[in-house]
C-alpha cells in the first residue's frame, strides 16, 4: 500500500550515561512490523539505544536500517552486539538475527519492563492485527489470542473508514468526541459492511463526527469482546498504532471499566525491547 497509515514519527534515542565498552553483555532486538520497524540495544540489560522508522517495501533492508539508525553516533557497530533476536510480522527478514521469537512473547516481556511487573493484560492494536495478551509478573505469557484474519479492529479497518469520510487518520480520535451525544455503534462488524452502513447514515443526514463516533465505539466494542475471551486483569496497557487514537482507547477503558497505564517510554518499542531482553537471556543460557 502506497498510502501511509499512521503518521509515525521516525526517531532514535541513545543513553548519555552508559559506557558500552565496560564488558557488559550487549544484546539487540529488532521488531519488523507491517507498518513500522524498531530496533533496541541493551547493555547489560539496560536500555542503551533505540530507533523507530517506517518499514519499507524491503523488510531485510528495514531491519538493517533501523539497527544502523539506533547505533548512529554511539560508536558501537553490529559486530559488538553479541546476540540479536528478530520479532514481528517480518521477523524472518532480519538477516543478522541469531533467533526469531513471536511478537506475542516479546510484547509481554517488553511491557513488563516498560510498564512495570504489575502489568497483567496487554492489548496491542497494530496496522494489520490485534493481539490480546495476559502475562505473569515475569512477563511470561499465560493466555493470548491474536487476530490477523479480519480487518475489523485493526488499524487497517480504521484507515478504510477515515478514507471513506475523508478525514485525516490522526484526527479521527478527537473528532469522535465532538458529538452531542454518543450514537449507537455501527452494527456491522465487517469493515466492508460497516462502510455501506456508514454511507447510509451519512445520507440520512448524520454528521461526519457522529458516524466516526459510531465506528470508534463499534471498534472498541469489538476489541473488548476479544479481551473477554482471555479475561482482563489490571494493570492494563494498550500499545500499537491505535493506542494513539483516543476515540477508541477511551471507549475501551470505559467499557471494561479499567484505566490504561502510561509509560515514559514510547509504547512502540515494546516488541523490540522484549526481543532484546530475550536475546540477553538466551545468550546467557548459551542457546
Amino acid at each position, binding site marked *: *500500500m502506497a498510502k501511509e497509515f499512521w503518521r509515525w514519527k521516525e526517531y532514535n534515542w541513545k543513553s548519555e550515561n552508559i559506557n558500552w565498552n565496560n564488558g557488559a553483555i550487549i544484546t539487540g532486538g529488532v521488531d519488523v512490523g507491517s507498518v513500522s520497524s524498531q530496533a533496541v540495544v541493551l547493555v547489560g540489560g539496560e536500555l542503551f539505544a533505540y530507533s523507530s522508522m517506517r518499514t519499507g517495501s524491503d523488510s531485510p533492508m528495514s531491519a538493517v536500517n533501523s539497527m544502523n539508525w539506533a547505533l548512529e553516533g554511539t560508536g558501537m557497530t553490529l559486530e559488538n552486539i553479541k546476540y540479536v533476536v528478530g520479532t514481528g510480522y517480518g521477523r524472518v527478514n532480519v538477516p543478522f538475527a541469531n533467533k526469531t521469537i513471536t511478537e506475542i512473547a516479546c510484547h509481554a516481556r517488553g511491557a513488563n519492563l516498560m510498564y512495570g511487573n504489575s502489568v497483567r493484560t496487554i492489548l496491542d492494536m497494530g496496522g*494489520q492485527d490485534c493481539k490480546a495478551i495476559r502475562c505473569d509478573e515475569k512477563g511470561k505469557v499465560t493466555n493470548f489470542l491474536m487476530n490477523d*484474519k*479480519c*480487518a475489523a479492529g485493526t488499524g*487497517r*479497518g480504521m484507515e*478504510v473508514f477515515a478514507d471513506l469520510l475523508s478525514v485525516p487518520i490522526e484526527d479521527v480520535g478527537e473528532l469522535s468526541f465532538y458529538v452531542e451525544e454518543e450514537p449507537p455503534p455501527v452494527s*456491522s*462488524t*465487517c*469493515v*466492508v*459492511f460497516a462502510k*455501506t452502513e456508514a*454511507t*447510509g447514515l451519512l*445520507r*440520512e443526514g448524520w454528521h461526519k463526527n457522529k458516524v466516526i463516533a459510531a465506528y470508534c465505539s463499534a471498534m472498541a466494542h469489538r476489541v473488548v469482546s476479544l479481551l473477554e475471551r482471555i479475561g482482563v486483569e489490571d494493570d492494563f496497557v494498550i500499545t500499537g498504532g491505535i493506542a494513539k487514537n483516543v476515540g477508541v482507547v477511551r471507549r475501551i477503558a470505559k467499557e471494561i471499566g479499567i484505566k490504561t497505564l502510561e509509560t515514559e517510554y514510547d509504547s512502540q518499542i515494546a516488541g523490540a525491547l522484549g526481543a532484546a531482553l530475550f536475546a540477553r537471556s538466551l545468550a546467557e543460557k548459551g542457546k
Partner: protein
Amino acid sequence: MYKVGIDVGAKNIKIVVMKDGEVIAKDQCLAGFETKENTLSLYQKILESANISESDVSKITATGSGKKAAYFAQNSITEVTAAAKGATSLYPSAHSIIDVGAEEGKSIRCDGNGKIVDFALNEKCAAGAGAFIESMGRALELPIEQFGELSMQSDKEIPMNAQCAVFAESEVVSLMHAKTEKKDIAKAVNDAVASRITSMTRKVGFEKDIVLIGGMAKNTGFVQALKKGLETDIILAKDPEYISAIGAAIYND
C-alpha cells in the same frame, strides 16, 4: 389475479409479477439509500409496463435482508424459505440449493418435496459472498460482469493468503505490482470464494440435484470452481437473481 414477490437484497431489489405459476413481468434496480422509495417505484413501474392495475394484485409477499422496505407488502417470509420455495418449484428435483448473493451465502438442503431439512448461512463477513468479488474487482479495475469470463481463461492456481476482503484487496494490488496477469488474479479470487461456499455446503451436506441461485450464479468462473470443489455437477438456475422473488410470490399458493 396477479401475485407479486419482492426480494429486497443488500444490493438490488428484484420484483416479479406472477399469474398461474408463470412469470408475467420482472425487473430489478439498485437498492440504493432510499430503499423504500426505490422499492415502491420499481413496483409501480413494473405494473405500469405490464399494464396491470394495483387492484388486480391479490397478494404481495416480501423477502430479502431489506424486506421491511417493501412496507406495502401483506406478508413477508425469510430468505431461506423464499430461496427454497422458488428453486424447488422451478426445479422439482432439487435437493440442495446454494444461494450466493452480494452479502450472504446460503446452503439449503431439502427433501424431495421442497421441505427444508437443514441450512447454513455465511453472513456478516464479506469474505464469503459477492461483496468479496466486488471489492477485488475494484482493485483490479474489472467490472464484475467480466470477472467470470476472464477467470475462465486462466489455468493457474494462485492461492490467496488473505481471507478478509479488506486485506485481500491489498494482496490483489501487490499481485498486480508483481505483474501477475489479471485473468490469473480473477481466478484466484473466484477460487477463494468458491472454497468458502464449498466448505459451508459440505457442512450442511448436499445431495443431487444441486441448484445454484443468486447473482453469483452468473459468474462462470465461480461456478466452475464450485463444481470442482463439490466434485459434482450443478444446475444453474435461469435468471438466478429472481428465484427468491419467485419463491415469495408463490409462497402459500
